[in-house]
């Protein structure tokens, strides 16, 4: 391991080069963060409209008609509008929030700092990947404004619904094409980012930063980047094939002998709808770990820091991250138990799925082991990390039901699934982002966030998300299908309406309290008290420099690492934490 030798670029002067087309990983990280913040509020707004419609399917709302003159003519939301809101909610949340903020946002900002590098390995590629993501978002949102509106095929875009064009429904014309185009652009951006993360971690670690001395956050960013590199490449290929099916008449995913809307489809033959599902989920399952792994890293890092204790079983955690990454590529078939694929393969996929539960359980045990015997400080960042553990346990356990093909015979495509993935991939991951925000905000912006407001926001959100997503498991057990725009056509669903009303009100409440977060964020940006260099008495490298850090991160100094990342409460040490860069004479095990 040698000190980083690549010649650093100089600090830019003009506004455009400094804040817009910046090469600085810190600015790019913040750009990604705000892109994600914008997206998460769009995505949340869409979910509120959906929850409103589910319990008020007949309601006429004047401004719906203004926003969607055709799809909500007279103010009443049509089923196709509901489905397009649903498709866009899922897509924006998965791609532009869950993939973007934990990895590209925090990862971009803190990977170089935590491993002692001056920047990412390829700053120009880094800038390019952000602006490509930005274009993908613009293309995605533009699908709302074309004729027919946004697509209605869901974020999974199963053909032939997504492949046969306008004939399968409104939104399946131009809207669906733009959707695929946006995803393809996003894949390109993610591939650029993934290469950059891997190269940076491999090449730019400072002197003494052995792999086994990296904070667990860096391990999760590295493994996530590998998942992104292998996963998005496949999605990109699948997306291109789908565009070809739609535009030039190929038949990768469309079989022969179809008749749609009373028209015989004679120009397609020999395609396979299942091929798309295999390609999609070959990306789609690793995507779940792309969303959650960085949250696991942040949680491990923060639990240790705020419990003032070393991570319990650091090596076991690293191996768990690696095995989750590896097994993540072998379980995609559990999304397809009911798809009509060979039922024998379901057996293999389910055993592998149970196997991936093991490293996830190891992480949970180790988190509790980390807290055990600690001296826990309840700062807001820590609260969100503790909330993450609770949500991860709850959301993970429902996966033990869904991973069994036998039980999936009933649960597939019910609200049980919706509850499961929102709990673990949605809110647990978002709690990881909140934790990261409260922990790193002082470093990123040089100011502290408000703790009181932060705690109120935490408790309201924690209780709120449990109230939204736990009841989904119950209506799922009662057989409530997902992706229904209203529940009036199936008789047994009438009995579940009170539960849906409860979830809708819980969603309104939870969404409303997010305003507290926005107030806290923007107020603190300008008015928060000045942050010291190391407000949490943390040990990792980003806390050895000023808040915010200088342009080249370490002010021309090449940091040298002498200790492991989690040396808290070392007996005989003068303070209860040893910085990674402290001289080796300071006692520590590593």
């Amino acid at each position, binding site marked *: 391991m040698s000190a980083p030798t690549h010649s650093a670029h100089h600090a830019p002067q003009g506004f455009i080069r400094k804040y817009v087309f910046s090469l600085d990983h810190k600015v790019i990280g913040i750009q990604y963060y705000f892109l994600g913040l914008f997206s998460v509020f769009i995505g949340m707004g869409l979910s509120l409209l959906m929850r409103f419609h589910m319990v008020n399917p007949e309601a006429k709302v004047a401004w719906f008609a203004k926003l969607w003159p055709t799809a909500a003519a007279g103010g009443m939301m049509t089923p196709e509008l509901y489905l397009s809101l649903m498709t866009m909610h899922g897509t924006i949340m998965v791609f532009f929030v869950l993939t973007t903020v934990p990895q590209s946002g925090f990862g971009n900002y803190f990977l170089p700092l935590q491993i002692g590098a001056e920047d990412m390995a390829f700053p120009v590629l880094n800038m390019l990947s952000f602006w490509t993501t930005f274009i993908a978002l613009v293309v995605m949102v533009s699908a709302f404004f074309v004729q027919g509106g946004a697509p209605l095929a869901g974020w999974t875009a199963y053909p032939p619904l997504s492949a046969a064009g306008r004939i399968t429904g409104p939104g399946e014309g131009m809207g669906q094409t733009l959707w695929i185009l946006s995803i393809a652009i996003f894949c390109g951006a993610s591939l650029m980012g993934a290469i950059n993360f891997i190269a940076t971690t491999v090449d730019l670690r400072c002197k003494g930063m052995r792999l086994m001395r990296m904070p667990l956050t860096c391990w999760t960013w590295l493994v996530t980047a590998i998942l992104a590199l292998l996963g998005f490449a496949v999605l990109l290929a699948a997306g291109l094939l789908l565009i070809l099916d739609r535009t030039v008449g190929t038949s990768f995913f469309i079989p022969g002998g*179809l008749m749609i809307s009373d028209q015989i489809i004679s120009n397609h033959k020999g395609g396979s709808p*299942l091929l798309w599902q295999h390609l999609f989920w070959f990306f789609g399952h690793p995507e779940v770990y792309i969303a959650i792994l960085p949250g696991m890293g942040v949680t491990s890092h923060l639990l240790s820091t705020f419990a003032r204790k070393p991570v319990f079983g650091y090596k076991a955690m690293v191996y768990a991250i690696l095995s989750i990454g590896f097994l993540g590529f072998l379980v995609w078939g559990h999304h397809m138990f009911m798809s009509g694929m060979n039922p024998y393969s379901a057996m293999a996929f389910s055993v592998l799925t149970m196997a991936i539960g093991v490293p996830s359980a190891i992480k949970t045990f180790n988190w509790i082991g980390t807290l055990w015997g600690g001296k826990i400080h309840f700062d807001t960042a820590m609260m969100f990390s*503790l909330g993450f553990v609770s949500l991860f346990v709850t959301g993970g356990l429902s996966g033990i039901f869904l991973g069994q093909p*036998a039980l999936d015979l009933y649960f597939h*495509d019910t609200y049980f699934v919706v509850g499961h993935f929102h709990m673990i991939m949605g809110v647990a991951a978002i709690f990881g982002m909140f934790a990261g925000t409260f922990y790193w905000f002082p470093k990123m912006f040089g100011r502290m966030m408000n703790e009181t407001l932060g705690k109120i926001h935490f408790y309201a959100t924690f209780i709120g998300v449990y109230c939204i997503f736990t009841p989904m498991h119950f209506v799922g057990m009662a057989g409530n299908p997902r992706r229904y725009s209203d529940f009036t056509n199936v008789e047994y669903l009438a009995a579940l309406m009170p539960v849906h009303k409860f979830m809708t009100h819980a969603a309104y409440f939870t969404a409303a309290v997010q305003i507290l977060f926005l107030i806290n964020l923007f107020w603190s940006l300008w008015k928060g008290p000045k942050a010291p260099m190391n407000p949490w008495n943390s040990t990792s490298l980003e806390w050895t420099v000023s808040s915010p850090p200088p342009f080249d991160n370490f002010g021309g100094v090449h940091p040298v690492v002498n200790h492991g990342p989690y040396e808290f409460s070392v007996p005989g040490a003068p303070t209860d934490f040893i910085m990674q860069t402290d001289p080796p004479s300071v006692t520590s095990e590593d």
Partner: protein
Amino acid sequence: MLLAPVIWILTAIIAYFFAAKTWWFPPPINAHGIAYDEQFMRTLIVCGIIFVLAQFALGWVIFRFRDDGRRASYNHGNNRLETVWTSATALLFLGLVLMGTKIWAGVHFDQPPADAVPIEVLSKQFAWSFRYPGPDGKFGHTDLKFVNDSAGNPFGLDDKDPAGKDDIVSASLKIPAGKPIKLIMHSRDVIHNFFVRELRMKQDIVPGMEIPLSFQADTIGVYEVPCSELCGLGHFQMRTTMQVMSPADFEQWKIEKAQK
């Protein structure tokens, strides 16, 4: 600190609703359904115990190890503990999935007996059709060019084929109780899904594929069939029923249906 009781209370409320079965499965109507419910309960008990213990433990460490002026203990883990909980989890999870394999095998690997009642299922945006072969036991030839939904010919029966003359077409599924049924499922346009809660069974119907599903239903009654794979704007309306009749009533229904 306040977080500990919050976690405990949420855990207790969730555990209560699972124990009280406030919102639950409808009763099963066949042996597969009973076996399904047993496997569900096994999984629920295992996951329920882990859930309550893990959340309780989380609350406990939050409460017990709050900063009260002590010094935190210093250790980097315990390899023996790691080995114990890794193997325990692996055994438990794999055990559960293996116990469920018989149920899966019963649905997908066991061949239906030769005398199973064959019924063709056709799904399209946004309706169901079911076809019975009639007294000759043969399905008539079909072709998309003969399809005429409004004239009651969703399958595209060829009226020149004598085997199709006695075919019975219905918009809802009628089956005899206690007899093995063999569905042969097709989709005309996009992917749909056949789901009956009381059967504890669902299956995607993929265009371009012929997908079999066999089962038996023992309890007479009418059960809803909601489409369970997103198929377009009318997905939420794509509903039919499955009526389980006594074998005598079923034969009677076929005769009446054939005369119409």
